[in-house]
């Protein structure tokens, strides 16, 4: 049962992570391929602060602000670029962040990672704390989804969609396109940082290997599979992907075949992305296109 809660918490963390990417990719049309960097910034900031003696809750709050600020700082120069180039710049940023965590041993302990990250609100470490942490995560996830719902239905959210569809139209309506995009990235990074912080305090051990390109692909898949530009799409996508991943562990696979599991899983993810784009680019839950703006 604890294991089930464990999966649920990871799925919920990915719900937040995927929803944060969806704000940029689905609503604002920004192809952020380095989103994992903000997940990592949130995780590392919160972990380092709480290990330095700050209370975990305060560390998480500071981590959010750090992620949002670094998101805005990256967005301001990177948004001078359009489309594909924004993708490359963010991809490079993601790799830079990972290399930083790997090389700056004085801060991050490099490949050894950070063990013993305390859980917030006095939740016990180890297995016994998992059910309580689950409730904690559910509360936060619901709050995040409510905020995102409010945001995307607000004039700001609608303006983002206009920017995505046609920047010139947005400009003609007197919208400040640059500011809209920066705010979208900052908000996306804030929630990615939240997901990262939740992750760090849940698994209590993080290392640079948790924040690789694979996580970027995974979260991208959650958004695209579920349906980008919708609130429920990434939620569904995250649950499907995480449960699929965990179910694989229960398949009766001979141990000497074990080394094939992870590559095959990767191939499936890659193939699903390609096939989705070919056959159903809108994902499982398509976006309603008849908005009354």
């Amino acid at each position: 049962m604890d294991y089930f809660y464990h999966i649920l918490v990871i799925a919920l963390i990915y719900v937040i992570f995927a929803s944060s990417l969806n704000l940029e990719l689905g609503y604002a049309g920004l192809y952020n391929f380095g989103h994992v960097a903000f997940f990592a910034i949130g995780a590392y900031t919160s972990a380092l602060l709480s290990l330095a003696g700050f209370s975990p809750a305060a560390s998480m709050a500071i981590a959010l602000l750090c992620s949002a600020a670094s998101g805005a700082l990256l967005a301001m120069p990177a948004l001078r670029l359009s489309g594909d180039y924004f993708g490359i710049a963010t991809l490079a940023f993601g790799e830079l962040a990972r290399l930083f965590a790997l090389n700056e041993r004085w801060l991050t302990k490099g490949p050894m990672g950070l063990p013993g990250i305390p859980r917030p609100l006095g939740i016990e470490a180890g297995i016994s704390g998992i059910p309580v942490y689950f409730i904690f995560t559910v509360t936060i996830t619901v709050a995040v989804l409510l905020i995102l719902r409010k945001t995307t239905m607000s004039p700001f959210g609608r303006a983002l969609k206009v920017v995505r569809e046609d920047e010139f139209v947005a400009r003609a309506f007197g919208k400040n396109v640059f500011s809209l995009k920066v705010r979208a990235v900052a908000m996306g990074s804030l929630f990615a940082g939240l997901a990262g912080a939740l992750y760090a305090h849940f698994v209590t051990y993080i290392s640079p290997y948790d924040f690789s390109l694979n996580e970027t692909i995974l979260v991208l898949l959650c958004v695209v599979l579920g349906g980008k530009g919708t609130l429920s799409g990434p939620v569904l996508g995250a649950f499907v992907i995480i449960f699929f991943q965990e179910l694989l562990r229960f398949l009766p696979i001979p141990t000497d075949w074990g080394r094939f599991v992870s590559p095959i899983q990767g191939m499936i993810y890659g193939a699903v992305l390609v096939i989705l784009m070919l056959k159903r680019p809108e994902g499982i839950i398509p976006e309603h296109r008849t908005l009354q703006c």
Partner: protein
Amino acid sequence: MSGYYLQLMTNGIIAGAVYALFAVGLTLVYGVFRFINFAHGELIAWGAYLTLAFSALIPFGAAIFPAVAVTVLIALAQERYVYAPLRKKAGITLLIASIGLSYFLRNGLRLLWGSDLKSFGFEAARGLVFFGITVSRTQIAMFLAALIFLGFVWGLHKFTMLGKGLRAAADSLELAEIVGIDMKKIGRAVWIISAVFAASGGILIAIDTNLEPMMGIANLLKAFAAVLLGGAGNVWGALLGGLFIGIAENLGVAFFSPGYKDAISFALIIAILLFKPTGIFAIMKGMR
């Protein structure tokens, strides 16, 4: 001390020549199809791994040819089954599909050959010394191969109808089609050139160092940096960009920890995009 820097410079130029191969392939595809192929890195890795596989059956020198040929087939299959059907849809679908494709191909490598480091098993030969600079035979081969391939592209651009077509397409797709240039033929040529360059460069790098599944993505990011330095679609810019990246990251070793060797190109990408998104080496505008 200056000898040390000269040595780093030389290493940089040789590495840069190979990066230029990757970058030229990437930028040629961009020039014709106006999209950035995230799966280009996997052509690099597959070229190297296929050579490893074929060299178990036939001598190494002969194994290169079927390996490059299969890589070309992979590239053509990419175009035919994924990119061509998506060309009419929104840009993001193409981009996500190419990322998915690269992930698929990379994990295919891991499935077939495992995730561990592999090598072609050449014995390390003593380097040759010119004017106090040590160069290995592999490095000379890398440089010469890059020179020959890039010379081939230059000749193609300068003297053939195909090259003219390429230049026309890079300039304006619609106009090129209007004047009756066969875009299908151009497209196929571009994929073949880019796959041959990627596979050959991948093999050379694998001879010099080793093979690992992530070699594609690592070199792809360098090629991206080179393409951006040169201005997307600009072949000569990509060439200079590749050389620049090679020199920058090798000279960088003198100043930063070697762990950051790869980071230099990533930082360059962000810096270029910050200050000069049109590219720094986009000087020869007429010679795209």
